[in-house]
């Protein structure tokens, strides 16, 4: 059935909120003590990556082990490590040695509570592939040595409650003076009063699976899918969207329900058989957020080309086509990407959820035998 094929096509877009989200700090606080100067640069939530010690061998993950008879591979769970990546900008001297990072509640003792960093990463990446290479890379050695101003990141186990509580990142620095070595713990405020964040997301792919009550050119209900590509400009996502859809089946079924409400799935003799395609220019955004729930909005101007086959009772099928133009307004309830204390309520995000929309349209070419004002519901993701 056409509807289920379309559903399968767009299902992956509903997983849009499963990807990494990067937040940029807006009002960072300098660490304590103030030398060397350290401040939070940002964080990545849902930092998903392969499990260290395991290797992707095409279809399976395996744990390699070198033995006297060669490399052996043991089965490994097909999974990812789910972590949070805190980035700290450090204005160090010619040589700053870092031996550890800790992410903890602000009430924890310095460098002695919360989560120890699983990995320490530094922004000294050679970008021979801007697409594949991250902006920081793991440094296995200890201490990690940096020089001048650099970004050092700590990878920690995911802890959603701690993301929404006042927290700190403690950086353990080693000072050397001849043979004398001392350690100093610099506490850098990560979340808490006065520290705000903004999602760094810029480009965005999205999709919609929707049921629409009618078009200006036909009163038959339709099913459609749409894919969009957009860019966040401040809190507004500006995108272009392409859409296709239609009623189900290629001819009316005399045993199907009467009326035009079920044409999208089981068209009866009252239904037109329609296919349509079109495009729209859309602005959308988040109006309000609380934890991972959000209310979204969208405004679009759409153009739709439809091919319609109508069979009057006892008559022969007549085909026609029409083009319509008009605005569309939508409100949505969304499940958004994980956020952090201090993130703006209207910050860009990735999300999926349900949208209710109304659309008005004028037929500018062909016969307008449908409804000038209509509506529908959609499963959306971006």
């Amino acid at each position, binding site marked *: 059935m056409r509807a289920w094929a379309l559903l399968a096509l767009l299902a992956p877009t509903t997983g849009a909120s499963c990807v990494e989200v990067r937040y940029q700090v807006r009002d960072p606080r300098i660490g304590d003590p103030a030398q060397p100067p350290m401040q939070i640069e940002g964080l990545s939530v849902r930092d998903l990556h*392969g499990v*260290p*010690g395991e*290797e*992707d*061998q095409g279809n399976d993950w395996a*744990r*390699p*082990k*070198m*033995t*006297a*008879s*060669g*490399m052996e591979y043991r089965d490994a769970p097909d999974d990812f490590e789910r972590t949070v990546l805190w980035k700290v900008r450090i204005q160090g001297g010619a040589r700053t040695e870092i031996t550890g990072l800790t992410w903890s509640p602000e009430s924890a003792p310095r460098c002695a509570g919360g989560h120890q960093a*699983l*990995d*320490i990463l530094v922004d*000294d*990446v*050679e970008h*021979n*592939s801007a697409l*594949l*290479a*991250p902006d920081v*890379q*793991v*440094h*296995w*050695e*200890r201490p990690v040595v940096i020089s001048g101003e650099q970004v050092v990141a700590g990878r920690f186990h995911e802890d959603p409650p701690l993301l929404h509580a006042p927290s700190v990142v403690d950086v353990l620095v080693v000072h050397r003076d001849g043979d004398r070595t001392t350690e100093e713990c610099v506490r850098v405020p990560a979340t808490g009063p006065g520290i705000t964040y903004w999602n760094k997301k810029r480009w965005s792919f999205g999709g919609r699976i929707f049921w629409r009550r009618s078009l200006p050119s036909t009163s038959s209900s339709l099913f459609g899918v749409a894919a969009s590509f957009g860019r966040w400009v401040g809190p507004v996502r500006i995108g272009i969207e392409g859409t296709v859809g239609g009623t189900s089946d290629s001819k009316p079924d005399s045993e199907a329900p009467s009326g035009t409400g079920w044409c999208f799935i089981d068209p009866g003799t009252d239904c037109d058989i329609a296919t349509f395609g079109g495009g729209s220019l859309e602005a959308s955004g988040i109006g309000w957020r609380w934890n991972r729930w959000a209310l979204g909005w969208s405004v679009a101007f759409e153009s739709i080309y439809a091919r319609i086959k109508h069979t009057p009772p006892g008559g022969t099928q007549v085909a026609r086509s029409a083009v319509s133009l008009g605005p569309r307004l939508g409100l949505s309830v969304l499940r958004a990407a994980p956020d952090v204390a201090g993130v703006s309520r209207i910050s860009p995000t990735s999300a999926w959820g349900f949208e209710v929309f109304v659309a008005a349209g004028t037929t500018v070419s062909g016969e307008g035998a449908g409804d000038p004002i209509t509506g529908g519901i959609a499963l959306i993701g971006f």
Partner: protein
Amino acid sequence: MRRPSYIAVAAAVVLSAASGAGCHYQVAIDRKPGAAPRCTDGVCLEVVTFYTNRKTVGVWMHAPPSTRLINARVAAGDSPACQGRFPTEWVDVDGDLHRQGPVDVSGGHGLVFGFPANTWMSHADRFFDVELDVAGAPRCVRARLTNAEGRVAVGS
């Protein structure tokens, strides 16, 4: 004179473009330890396994007592030894995973090093460098992985 077929010309163009875009044929070795160990001042290092479409390098190493592994890197030929731009992300020593160093490697051990995904975007003239601390003295041991043409050159 025979002219090349259109398919051959098209293939040459595609291959040339792919090469320029950073796409390369994959090279690999996968063998048993003992085939070609290279020893210097008591440290023997042998690259046993690597695939340029995977993210690990497997080696067999024999080191004197009080030897610690400090770091390991995949490096281009023009990088100074042990200062290459692709540092290891994790090390497995005889089946034990270590997410941070240093780690004691005195004696004979099978080691697997994990590297970042972008390590092999270009794989011509690549070396594998191991940074050691042998009884308090720093050592850098280098093994060639590929030659300037991007072909396997382990042991050369």
